């Protein structure tokens, strides 16, 4: 059964400037989907449509029974059930690491402080940052901040996780510490949709790869098939460019 289903999603600012064109795809429970494509192809916009951070003009999205667009859908509630990790981490700079992890647990899920704290410490241990619990985001490296951001999303017990280029803003030596956490998460059966250029990661953990260009989904195929013999010329060109070195 599909956990996330997009049906003909289109987004435009003006009729001439269309950023998503009739995108249809589905993600099953426990599936890991990698979305790749040249910059400006609409990948980030597409995954931001899934938790309604970006509005769209046509089509529909269903996430575990909740529909978009639908005035009856409680957007904050829907968003709280989907974890999101951003390219630039977006930790809250004025809050300590534990406060970053507790805020939404307490304000959205109405968990008590003790419970939220216990969950935060458990997740910090999991991403290997217990020693930094009392620090502030500005005192951590990029890789550490991104691991905190993943922990912050997991603290909400999400049914699925969205990653928007989680390693693009990192120095090369920090990419792996973040990918390791993501690989582990995938291994535990988390439903994941990942926009990334890390093709090694895609090969290793993705069940399917979606290739986008010009706002369209050009290919949507099992990982092995995609890397073995991409059908489209555009995907071939893209792969040859990013795998050249």
């Amino acid at each position, binding site marked *: 059964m599909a956990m996330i289903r997009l049906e003909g999603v289109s987004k435009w600012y003006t009729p001439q400037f269309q950023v998503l064109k009739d995108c249809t795809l589905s993600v099953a429970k426990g599936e890991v989907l990698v979305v790749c494509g040249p910059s400006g192809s609409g990948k980030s916009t597409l995954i931001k449509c899934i*938790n309604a951070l970006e509005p769209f003009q046509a089509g529909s999205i269903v996430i575990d029974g909740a529909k978009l667009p639908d005035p009856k859908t409680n957007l904050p509630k829907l968003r709280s059930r989907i974890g999101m990790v951003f390219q630039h981490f977006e930790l809250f700079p004025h809050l300590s690491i534990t406060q970053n992890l507790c805020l939404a647990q307490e*304000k959205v899920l109405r968990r008590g402080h003790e419970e939220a704290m216990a969950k935060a410490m458990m997740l910090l241990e999991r991403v290997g940052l217990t020693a930094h619990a009392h620090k502030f985001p*500005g005192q951590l490296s990029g890789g550490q901040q991104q691991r905190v951001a993943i922990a912050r999303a997991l603290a909400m017990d999400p049914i699925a996780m969205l990653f928007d280029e989680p390693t693009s803003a990192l120095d090369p030596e920090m990419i792996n510490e973040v990918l390791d956490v993501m690989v582990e998460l995938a291994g535990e059966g988390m439903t994941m949709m990942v926009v990334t250029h890390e093709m090694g990661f895609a090969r290793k953990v993705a069940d399917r790869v979606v290739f986008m260009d010009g706002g369209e989904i050009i290919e949507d195929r099992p990982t092995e098939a995609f890397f073995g013999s991409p059908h489209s010329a555009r995907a071939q060109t893209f792969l040859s460019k990013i795998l050249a070195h």
Partner: protein
Amino acid sequence: MNYHWNWGIFWEMSPEGTGTYFDMLLAGLWWTLATSALAWIIAFSVGSVVGVLRTLRSGWVVMACNAYVELFRNIPILVQLFLWYFVLPEVLPAEMGRWLKTMPNAAFWTGSIGIGLFMSARVAEQVKAGLQALPRGQWMAGTALGLTTAQTYRYILLPTAFRIILPPLTSEMLNTVKNSSVALTIGLMELTAQTRAMQEFSFQVFEAFTAATILYLIVNAVVTLAMRWVEKMAAVPGYTTGH
């Protein structure tokens, strides 16, 4: 210049019969402080609300708030006080106008509200700038966690935005204190008005205005130091707002 200096004038009784000239200045200082404090409370609260509303994605709300800011910051403060004090009671229904005119301490209330609203337009501008200085991702991150718009502002955007605009807000506080002197034109006996009264009674213009200058400097030095302390208290380890 044939000026007769008399620094002892402050300890002489004023013809008002309420104490020495120094007491007169202190009474003025008290009104200056009260007017500045109330005006700042109004400026800060109204300005914050208007500033926040101007960053929402609702066309007519933004337009209405922009109109508010343009109206209050583009009319000279002197004209605004005259409008509130002399014109408003006349255009209101007779009963209400009479109530306004006979209200005790009318100059204080009108002055504080008038100066407060004038300053609120400037605070609104600062708050908006502070919020717009934040990366859009901060809003997204709060929203993506399921926080409502109000919660995102309350817990994430405003705490950071206010830290960024603390230095300009300090300037606005100092401006509020200085602008309180304009209220003398509607008859508020604040520090500048009392200083002029002292000069007229005693003819010791230099002594009177030296004292007023020093008192204003002390008040604003206290404001500046207090705000430095607030900045220090609000500083976040590893986070520099000047990036």
